[in-house]
């Protein structure tokens, strides 16, 4: 989506800053925000650019480096940690050939840690963009990755 289209969808008020940033970032295949975009958003809302930068750096959802089309977020908080018998993190790192925090070379996946996803009754869980996968097993993780790969190649 064009930035101007996103800006026009909201009233020109500071209170919509997070909504604008979230909406725009989600619309980009790289799931990241660039400096000139932040400046444009700041200008539009009549805010100092430094304010927008500080907001972006505060919230963990925002990134200023390009990420994959699919962001894989695994949870490692206590309820998931004690229900994880095989290490979700190691399984994902091995299958993807990257470390947590990195993006695969083809730009398809970024692997991240997330704080508790509020789905501890379904542990262990993984969030892929806006979709939640639960009761993970090694096979289930393989199937999730395969499904995304086959869909994203098309």
């Amino acid at each position, binding site marked *: 989506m064009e930035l101007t289209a996103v800006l026009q969808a909201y009233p020109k008020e500071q209170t*919509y800053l997070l*909504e604008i940033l979230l909406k725009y970032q989600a619309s980009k295949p790289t799931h990241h925000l660039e400096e000139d975009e932040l400046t444009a958003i700041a200008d539009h809302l009549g805010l100092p650019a430094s304010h927008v930068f500080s907001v972006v750096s505060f919230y963990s959802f*925002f990134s200023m480096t390009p990420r994959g089309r699919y962001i894989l977020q695994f949870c490692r908080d206590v*309820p998931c940690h004690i229900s994880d018998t095989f290490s979700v993190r190691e399984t994902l790192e091995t299958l993807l050939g990257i470390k947590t925090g990195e993006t695969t070379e083809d730009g398809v996946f970024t692997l991240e840690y997330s*704080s*508790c996803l509020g789905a*501890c009754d379904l542990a262990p869980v993984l*969030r892929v963009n806006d979709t939640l996968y639960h009761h993970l097993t090694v096979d289930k993780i393989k199937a999730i990755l395969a499904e995304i790969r086959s869909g994203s190649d098309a």
Partner: protein
Amino acid sequence: MLEHKLITKHIGNIDPLSIDDYVGVGGYAMFKKALGMTRLDIHDAFEASKLRGRGGAGFPVAIKLMAMAKETRKPKYVICNADEGEPGNFKDRYLMENNPHQIIEGMLIAAYATGSSHGYLYIRGEYAQSMATMQQAIEAARQAGYLGSNILNSRFDFDLEIRSGAGSYVCGEEFALLESIEGKAGRTRVKPPFPTAKGLFNQPTLINNVETLATFPVIIAMGGEAYAKIGTPTSTGTKLISLSGNVRKKGVYEVPFGVSMRKIIEELGGGVGAGRKIQMIQLGGACGPIIPEYMLDMVIDFERFEEFESKTGAGAIIVIDDRHDMFAILEQVSEFFTHESCGKCTPCREGNVHMRNVLRRFVNKTATEQDLLMLENQARVIHQTSLCGLGQTAPTAIISTLHYFRFDYLNRIEDSMQEVA
């Protein structure tokens, strides 16, 4: 029966997205009833109910409503806190995704009682499904004339919008939440003034948790006195428990206050897996104490939670069986707070990193007696000198284990010495 379904009564019997279903089971009738009551009558009902906030701090609802009523400045706001970031808690998600209209009805009653014209539902960014469900419900309520101007020809106006969090646990803290809605980084404010006096955009603001607001229609329906008869004399009504960890039937259960944790874990949760034993539980979430198995007969009650200086008892019970190393769990808890600290004050920003590093030495069996002393010191300082509830409760799990599991610390130090030798 252990469960007592008051606010979850309709869950499972209605289609969450159908406003007709909700109206069919008596939905929005409590709001209509409230419209026929005076504001004073509504306050009296809440006072008699002795309802306390369900988001963790347990603050009496009637006091906040009264403070709001006294404010003459307009506009006034009602905010529903649906940030639910505390590890181990998922009951607000359960309510939003299974009965969204009851939350809207609760907000309507709150708005009418306080003379508020605008509401916000602040939902954590991770809850995409909850946001979609709530958005559809809000639109249906607007269509049906429950939101907007001159609602049901009562000359009462109220509308409501959703705001998304962006991955920050501290934004559940009420002042950080206000900052976030205002389009800023979620760093807390120094209080007082409290939100009821100076809240969103510096206007009078009522902030309550999802579960608290979902209870509003129930109290209007049954009356404050009848509600206060449920539970214990000081902790009235029911509580949603998020049960997770090493237990057979994880999930959300609604029980009256005064039920023991053992009953919840064994009768509702089906106990731990075959051949396993409960080692400990963590109560309330990452910010809560870790207590040994022999204390499970303790009952769910605000006073009991306060004995642990654990104010954030939002009702999580995390069951930990005997397969797990306590120090690995503590390290995970500490990792969480290190990650989520907003960095505004030094004890929390720096202290959590230090505590995590010390805990790592206990995990790796390289800890010394000096480490134990240091950990005790740091935990106390962070607890006492942090600015907001995040820093104040970050060391709770450590402090509680230093008390109940001191031998484990000493044994680990001994193990460490043997490893070196």
